[in-house]
């Protein structure tokens, strides 16, 4: 009986496949998906995929343990570009769940799989090996059908998996159409390598690899360059000297050297997301830099603050770094004791005014070089609905709003966008042990539905690394050093985010081709059940507004929160059909 179940099968990335359960419980839906699912026809041993040029398609390839040791995986890619990863599980309570993706080369994989497994977290009771396969459809690929094939050699036998690919007659733009921000603190090597153990050039290279990984997934990596105390991390900031009238930058070299590759785009060479400047970058400005808090709020404090920001603005302009928005953001919270305000996740009106003062002064100082895009970023959560209508809201260029608070405030969001600000809502990356990975997919769709400019996952690297993986809501990237890789490793959840970002590009392309959102709204109404902006918000629900709670998902009964994965796949296919006809 058991042998009639397929020993090799495929599934969508949003389907969690257990590495340990018996095949009958390999997914939440039993062994049905092994026989057939929305992308897999077990009887024909065929995966059916569809995508546009400049799109990455991905699926899971599952090899049951009874198939034997996996010896090789080969791809006949028919001119497309393939990628292969081993899904590595991490502990989640009493269970283990796949989350980490370690790259493999096509061809013989047995030694590599064994080596990765030796270095990966230990667990017992493996039931299967799961791989993630990527197919990149290069720009310019003609529309039409393609027959590809995977050959999996396991237990001495060769198994063929057909890949029936339909290439749509349109192409996705290289740049992300929606910002998917992965926020982080401190230095990248902190995630796996101590800074002092790296030489400087190596630390820059490693840091850039994290930024590139994000761009490869149509996302944005962010590193806040200072601590709660106001301590500048590493060599992220230009060097200052003097006090009062003499406070100034005496050397831009550390800043230029560390960030230069991101600012001129050269750090993104070879990325599918394009070799263009980083879209946003935190400046090191905080309550104690560049002005010393010893003087707050005296004239000397504001002189130091303005003088250095003016100097920075001129420098950015002179260097030609005009493609990046440089953010002035205050991450301070009263509970951290170093500064008196909650300027991050602002809850009380009185804390807003410090942000307003700093913001106004920054813009005045930056006005000396208008082509340097220095903007104010605010984390406005609890009272976003009121803050958005403050007179100084016009001084804020980027609003990052708790997902729950944002969901309640469509009018506030629309208002600040009308003033010229961008709006992102933030939350967590979604639990590793979720029943499905749809929440990772939905963020981009919600951003589109709510007419937001993006969203922010708090955060990319996390704080526990491999030693304290946690539920996953605080990270979606792993350091690769454990496997001898000097760079970051994506999670499956990041791959699903990537897919959501590509879906957002579909929505954008359709809107551009038809001249309005009406066509897309109609399709989403017929499929997902959300036909307009109001359907995507949660006006009046009053249950999720907050600040410090990092929401990975939502408990709303809105249609977009209850739709199954086949609904999203159908919506995407309908969008593609509409784009081709437009």
């Amino acid at each position, binding site marked *: 009986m058991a042998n009639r179940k397929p020993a090799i099968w495929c599934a969508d990335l949003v389907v969690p496949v257990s590495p340990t359960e018996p095949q009958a419980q390999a997914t939440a839906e039993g062994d049905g998906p092994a026989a057939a699912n929305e992308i897999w026809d077990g009887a024909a041993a065929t995966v059916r995929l569809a995508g546009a040029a400049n799109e990455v398609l991905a699926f899971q390839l599952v090899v049951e343990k009874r198939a034997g040791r996996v010896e090789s995986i080969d791809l006949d890619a028919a001119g497309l570009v393939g990628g292969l990863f081993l899904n590595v599980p991490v502990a989640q309570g009493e269970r283990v769940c796949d989350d980490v993706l370690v790259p493999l080369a096509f061809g013989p994989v047995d030694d590599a799989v064994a080596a990765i497994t030796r270095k990966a977290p230990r667990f017992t009771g493996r039931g299967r090996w799961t791989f993630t396969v990527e197919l990149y459809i290069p720009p310019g690929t003609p529309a039409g059908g393609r027959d590809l094939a995977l050959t999996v050699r396991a237990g001495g036998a060769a198994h063929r998996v057909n890949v029936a690919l339909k290439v749509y007659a349109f192409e996705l733009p290289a740049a992300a159409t929606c910002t998917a921000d992965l926020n982080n603190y401190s230095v990248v090597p902190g995630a796996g390598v101590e800074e002092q153990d790296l030489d400087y050039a190596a630390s820059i290279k490693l840091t850039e690899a994290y930024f590139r990984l994000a761009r490869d997934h149509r996302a944005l990596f962010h590193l806040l360059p200072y601590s*709660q*105390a*106001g*301590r*500048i991390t590493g060599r992220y*900031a230009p*060097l*200052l000297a003097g006090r009062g009238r003499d406070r100034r930058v005496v050397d831009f070299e550390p800043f230029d050297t560390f960030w230069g590759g991101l600012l001129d785009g050269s750090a993104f060479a070879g990325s599918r997301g394009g070799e263009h400047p980083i879209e946003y970058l935190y400046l090191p400005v905080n309550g*104690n*830099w560049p002005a*010393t*808090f*010893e*003087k*707050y*709020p005296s004239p000397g404090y504001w002189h130091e603050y303005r003088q250095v920001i003016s100097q920075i603005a001129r420098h950015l302009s002179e260097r030609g770094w005009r493609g990046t928005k440089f953010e002035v953001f205050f991450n301070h919270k*009263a*509970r*951290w*004791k*170093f500064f*008196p*305000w*909650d300027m991050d*996740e602002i*809850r*009380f009106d*009185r804390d807003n005014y*410090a942000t307003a003062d700093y913001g106004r002064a920054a813009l005045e100082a930056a006005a000396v070089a208008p082509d340097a895009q220095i903007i104010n970023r605010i984390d406005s959560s609890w009272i976003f609905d009121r803050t958005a209508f403050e007179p100084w809201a016009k001084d804020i260029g980027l609003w990052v709003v708790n997902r729950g608070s944002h969901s309640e405030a469509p009018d506030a969001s629309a208002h600040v966008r009308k003033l010229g600000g961008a709006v992102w809502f933030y939350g967590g990356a979604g639990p590793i042990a979720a029943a499905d990975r749809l929440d990772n997919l939905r963020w981009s769709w919600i951003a589109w539905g709510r007419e937001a400019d993006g969203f922010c996952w708090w955060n990319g690297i996390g704080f526990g690394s491999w030693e304290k993986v946690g539920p996953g809501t605080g990270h979606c990237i792993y350091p690769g050093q454990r496997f001898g890789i000097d760079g970051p490793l994506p999670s499956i959840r990041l791959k699903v985010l990537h897919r959501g970002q590509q879906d957002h590009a579909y929505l954008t392309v359709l809107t551009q081709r038809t001249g309005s959102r009406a066509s897309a709204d109609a399709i989403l109404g017929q499929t997902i059940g959300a036909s307009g902006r109001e359907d995507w918000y949660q006006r009046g629900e009053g249950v999720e507004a907050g*600040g*410090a709670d990092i929401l990975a998902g939502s408990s709303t009964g809105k249609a977009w929160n209850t739709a199954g994965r086949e609904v999203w796949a159908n919506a995407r296919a309908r969008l593609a059909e509409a784009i081709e006809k437009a």
Partner: protein
Amino acid sequence: MARIKASVRKATEARLRRVAHAATVFIDGDDFVAVPVDPKLNTGDDYQVNHEPFIRVKRTLMKLKRLEAGDVGVTTWRPFGPGQAEQVVPVDIHPLAVRPGNHPIPPAMAEAFAGRTAVHEQAYQGHPMLSVCAPIRNSMEEVVGVVEVSASLEPERFKVDQLDY
């Protein structure tokens, strides 16, 4: 930890004692006790401080750091629950967390809460540091808190003052 020369320790202690003495004179204890809006809280979404007294205390602490050349870090403590003290307004890095900032009171700090100045050694990530604890008094001359003035004992390798930029 590296072996510290007695002369280095002695000079560091003398320097920190001078700063701590100045701190007991210049930190306004009435401002200090007014910092937390609700003294029962020390962290969380509801934790707030009164801006004006906080800023005055913080400015004083930062000025104190400049009294003497060399590495100096300053933080302040208030009693918080049985046998514990809570960091109220820190300036520099410290081996004990600020969030939440309540920790068991070490003997030197207990001495300071009793109105006397005392010294103790600690380590920050393996680096030896010396602290002098001294009382903070209000206008009634009652001890309402403790100022802890610290310095690294191997400043060529590590400094408690990481805001010197």
